[in-house]
């Protein structure tokens, strides 16, 4: 069984909370903003999954949804199974137990996520205190010291305030805090953005070694495909609230099949490669407004290789190798999300057997 199993997850931000009566859950109304639109994936114990995409593609919303940290205006449907239990229907008491001890989050921007007027030792000790009220102060101090040393900081730094630490050291504190209750899963949202290359390398090495030593699963979110490809086993690329490509990290980064995945991968220069020297490949345009998505494939207005029917068909993820023959009716709109072994899947008509033309007929029928 997978440690984390997300099935057809949607997150919709409601324009006003008054419209949020229970019977309306899941139905779209005026002014609703669908931030996540039917995302499914699984994460096995000890596995590292990278989630990439531009700002506004829904990746951070998804991270927050996994621990139900979203505001009340957000409405969730689908399933998030963590170790077999559905997080969406879980009681608050049970949820509190799962947060920190089952799954914890490393947020981006450690300066804003740490309390500026509390010593870091107290902040790292807080989740331990909450989860094990019987543990004494001396024991907590000892565990905090161990955690600090584990992330490469001297134990005596427990008495420091966040402003006395550098950006890299603060990010280490965030990681120590995430490890405090021995979680099975760590969600890291842009853990190295805004850090220097050398500090980024230190933090990534640290995360990788901790994950490997303790068999923790990792969901890492970043806009930097090259960092994710370097750290993770598998990669998923999000666009406009959906996963549009998913597969082994090296394949997705090196040979993406979705035009959006290709554009993201091409945005990172490979030093020494003459192809990226003075020849820049940007992706024109902006991601669509989630409240006003284009018809058909939501990427088609920015797509360089769009086909005539791309504004009619909204393809679901499809195995790129074509090793599975889909049954009739198993077509689109989030229903084709079956596991396909180690293969890569992409949500693009060019991956479909007949460029997705049969879907056009179905749509118009």
């Amino acid at each position, binding site marked *: 069984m997978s440690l984390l199993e997300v099935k057809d997850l949607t997150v919709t931000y409601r324009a006003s909370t008054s419209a949020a009566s229970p019977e309306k859950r899941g139905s779209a109304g005026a002014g609703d903003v669908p931030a996540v639109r039917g995302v499914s994936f699984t994460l096995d114990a000890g596995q590292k999954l990278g989630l990439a995409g531009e700002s506004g593609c829904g990746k951070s919303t998804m991270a927050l949804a996994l621990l139900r940290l979203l505001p009340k205006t957000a409405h969730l449907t689908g399933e998030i199974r963590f170790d077999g239990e559905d997080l969406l229907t879980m009681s608050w008491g049970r949820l509190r137990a799962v947060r920190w001890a089952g799954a914890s989050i490393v947020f981006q921007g450690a300066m804003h996520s740490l309390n500026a007027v509390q010593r870091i030792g107290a902040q790292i000790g807080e989740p331990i205190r909450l989860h094990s009220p019987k543990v004494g102060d001396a024991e907590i101090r000892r565990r905090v010291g161990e955690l600090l040393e584990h992330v490469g900081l001297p134990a005596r730094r427990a008495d420091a305030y966040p402003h006395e630490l550098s950006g890299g050291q603060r990010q280490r504190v965030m990681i120590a805090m995430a490890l405090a209750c021995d979680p099975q899963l760590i969600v890291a949202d842009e853990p190295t953005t805004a850090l220097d290359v*050398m500090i980024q390398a230190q933090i990534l090495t640290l995360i990788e070694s901790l994950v490997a030593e303790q068999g923790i699963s990792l969901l890492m979110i970043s806009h930097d*495909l090259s960092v994710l490809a370097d750290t993770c086993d598998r990669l998923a690329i999000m666009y406009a609230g959906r996963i549009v490509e998913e597969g082994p990290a090296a394949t997705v980064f090196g040979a993406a099949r979705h035009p959006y995945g290709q554009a993201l991968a091409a*945005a990172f*220069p490979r030093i020494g490669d003459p192809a990226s*020297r003075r020849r820049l490949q940007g992706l024109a345009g902006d991601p669509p407004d989630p409240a006003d998505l284009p018809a058909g494939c939501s990427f088609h207005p920015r797509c360089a290789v769009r086909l005539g029917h791309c504004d009619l068909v909204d393809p679901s993820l499809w195995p790129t190798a074509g090793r599975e023959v889909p049954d009739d009716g198993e077509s689109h709109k989030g229903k084709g999300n079956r596991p396909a072994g180690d293969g890569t899947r992409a949500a693009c008509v060019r991956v479909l057997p007949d460029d997705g033309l049969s879907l056009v007929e179905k749509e118009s029928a």
Partner: protein
Amino acid sequence: MSEPIPNAPILSAEDVHVEFEARRGDGRARAVDGVNLDIAPGEIVALVGESGCGKTTLARTLLGLEKPTSGRVLHRGIPLAYTSKALKRFRRDVQLVLQDPSGSLNPRHTVYDAVAEGLRIHGDVPDERERVADALSRAGLRPPERFFLRFPHELSGGQRQRVVIAGALVLEPNVIVADEPVASLDASVRGEILALLLRLRDELGLAALVVTHDLGLAWNIADRVAVMYLGRIVETGPVEKILTAPEHPYTQALLSVLPEAPGAPVVLQGEPPDPTRIPAGCRFHVRCPVLASGAAAAAGVDGRCRGDDPGVLAGGTAIQVACHYARTVSSPDGPSDGPAAAARP
């Protein structure tokens, strides 16, 4: 008043030192500790280094925003005068492009006002509308009239950065200093903004000093790169050479930790030392993997690494490296032997 010297670099630093009083009164922080750097007309130079290495202080000094403690800044061969009148004239020619466009644009000013501000400060009121439109379209915001009355919050991150660039272009400068121009932008937008900088150079002959911690950016657009560590430039030369065959162990380490870099990453431990306590000898020796591995001792230079300052690198376009080991092990006809040996002690 002296006339500009023909063929002189458009902007130069000559043995520039910038010191600050340290916060706790224990000595002085040598943020820039002896730098020579030339930017030729139409040239794109990348100044790379980690936070705290002094690259932003050096850029501010080149813009006349910071006065060097010693050494001088030259504009077309003429030393910069620090009177407000001279600085105002200087800044028509040398413009700053800041990082984080959301922070450098006034949220209550329209795009038109943001771009026209420079013209108004310099009293260029005639043809204002035309020149604003021209700057916007050169920055890739077309048709410009459509953007005149927009506010920053109505624009995407990439468009905001284009507005900031248009604000710099409106005075028709010959050189721009861009501090992390793409650091806060999405990967997809990054390529567009960098392509714009390249196009401006090709079309207008605009030179640029791009300050960044991103070596990939240097590979993308720069002609030359200068790698800075703890207040000094430690390696400099053409991008193709420095980023594919670096000789300074610091440059080598920076390149090795990039995702996708070939070979094993050399992750340096700790962070650069405090600029109030710059190590004696080579300033990098306390973190140097070549010294730690014993390779420097095998080459017989370890004593010099600990005791002798490799010196300040000269300006100009030559390949130079401030490393005793690299200067010793390179072949006699190697690039580091010539100009580096000529560097001042």
